């Protein structure tokens, strides 16, 4: 099983590719909405992409209160 750091790194790579931003500009504690300049509908797109990649299900309601990449990684990690 990957470590939390590895999962976080993987998320940053996927998010950067999906929203066409430079991976170097993203760090684990960034507010993902602010950093990726996305709205809640685009955040759902990202979740679907992450679900397909990690082969887990991420319910929308569990994502309430999740704003940083690290917190998102923790949610995914707990399901791996």
């Amino acid at each position, binding site marked *: 099983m990957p470590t939390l750091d590895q999962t976080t790194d993987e998320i940053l790579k996927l998010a950067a590719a999906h929203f*066409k931003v430079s991976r170097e500009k993203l760090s684990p504690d960034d507010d993902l909405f602010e950093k990726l*300049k996305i709205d809640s509908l685009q955040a*759902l797109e990202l979740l679907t992409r992450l679900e397909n990649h990690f082969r887990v299900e991420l319910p929308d*309601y569990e994502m*309430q*209160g999740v704003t940083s990449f690290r917190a998102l990684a923790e949610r995914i990690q707990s399901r791996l």
Partner: protein
Amino acid sequence: MLDLRQYESLGAALDDALERWPHEVCLIEADRDRENCRLTYSDFKQMALPFARALQDSGFGEDDRAAIIMTNQSKWLVSAYAIFYCGGVLVPLDYKLTAREHLALLAHSKAKVLVIEYHLWRAIMASPGFKELHAQTVLVTEAPGSAEIASAKRWEEFKAGGEPRFAPRRRQDPACIVYSSGTGGRPKGCVLTHENYLEQCISLTSLYPFWPGVRYLSILPTNHAIDFMVGFIGPFTCGAAVVHLRTLRPEYIRDAFPRYKITYMSLVPMVLKNLEKGLRARFAELPSSRRWMLDRLIGLNKLLTGKRPNLKISRALLKQIHKAFGGELRALFVGGAFTEPATLQFFYDLGIPVANGYGLTEAGTAVTLNDFNPFRPDTVGRPLPGMEVRVVDPTDEGIGEVAVRSRTVMSHYLDDPEMTSETIVDGWLMTGDLGRIDPTGHLQLFGRKKNMIVTEGGKNIYPEDIETVFEGLPVKEFCVFSAHYLWPGSTGGEMLVIVLRPEPGREFDEALRRELAERNRKLPDFKRVRGYAIWDRDFPRTASLKIKRIELAEQIRASTERTTAVATL
């Protein structure tokens, strides 16, 4: 439906509804393509009463306040009914707020009980202000078995044997404290009485009735006044059913229409716009012969239903489209912000009436609603039955502040007599919105009173009115301000500036500038925008997705200078 004129409280009306239609389905909770639960009115009661009894055993009773912070799901409505059964006052809080904001509103409302989903509770427990939470009983739903929940109890285990005691309330007693997000300033606790809700329900269902078999798809947050009324009180007092979808992913919303044969749904303009975009993209992909046929059929539908909607005709002519929406859809409700007339027209032409309206938490829910008699997409409809609407101090053009008098208008703002007396004057609710009532009684809105600009020539300009010309511009979002409002004291004279946030990945190019200038020319000279500024962040928005103009202006002011930010148009 129940004759709500005979009831004193929401608790009494809901209680009778549960007895009246025991075998009808009242609630379906679905998660993606799975169904979590399907409850009849009788099942619903069986679930709620032991919970109500446990609440009473914990010391919760008449006039005590209970807050709910949950996404849309069955336990939201079960908890709300139990709170009303005990004579409590419901405080529905927006689940999209931050933990810090939740704690501030819990303190302001003095809620004795808090019902909350586990993931939101986790955020509150991790918040620095957690120790200041004074709710005596916290009930957490769906907490995993091993989860740490501090002194909270598990909702699923919170039940007690024995009949709870029904606590009767009077019409004038408070039923809910609803925090109005507003588009500026601090949130305000609107105290709404049982009468406010009962009268609003009578009024709305006279135009858009519910009955057993009707299914309402609930995707707007239930804490929002619209969903609370048309996604709970309305359907329940008519024996209809509510479908909760625990995801907002467009593909599952699309699937829910045919799966559950949806009759009504409410949404905000932004989501409606996305739906339109999706449909237009699908139409564009059709082979040219099918596209030609579709255009002819839409044209024929327009011809036959132009004056009045006729679902039978539209469903027969545009079968595939209506089939994709489940074949039972009667109307979509949209509110919360301005809806582009072209979008309303697009759906109307397909035979899917979108009832746009105007409302505010302080007035119960809706004040006006489009009744399609005839369809007037350029307005927000006519006042609902029981609503008196007038325009105060109108200008020569008939524009003034909209005032509302009705049995649905809130009692007061919680613990704020000063703001209450400024807002409710001689029994009239001063909305702060500028409008005009046309000769046929339809209300047209022009924007917020405080956003109005008076030009040097003494003309009144309403930024929101000007924005309508730019609707459909290929940018993510935009907002019009006066330059002196954005940068007070700046040199360069007063002028209007449009702030644009381009679509991600698209630059502001010459083509876009040309389209902007072209649309601008449609405005009379004194109303034209003279400059534009590019903004690279999402606009701050309220829970109902209205732009928070004050906050946006503050952000722009803090990080830009007029001289470098504004380009001449």
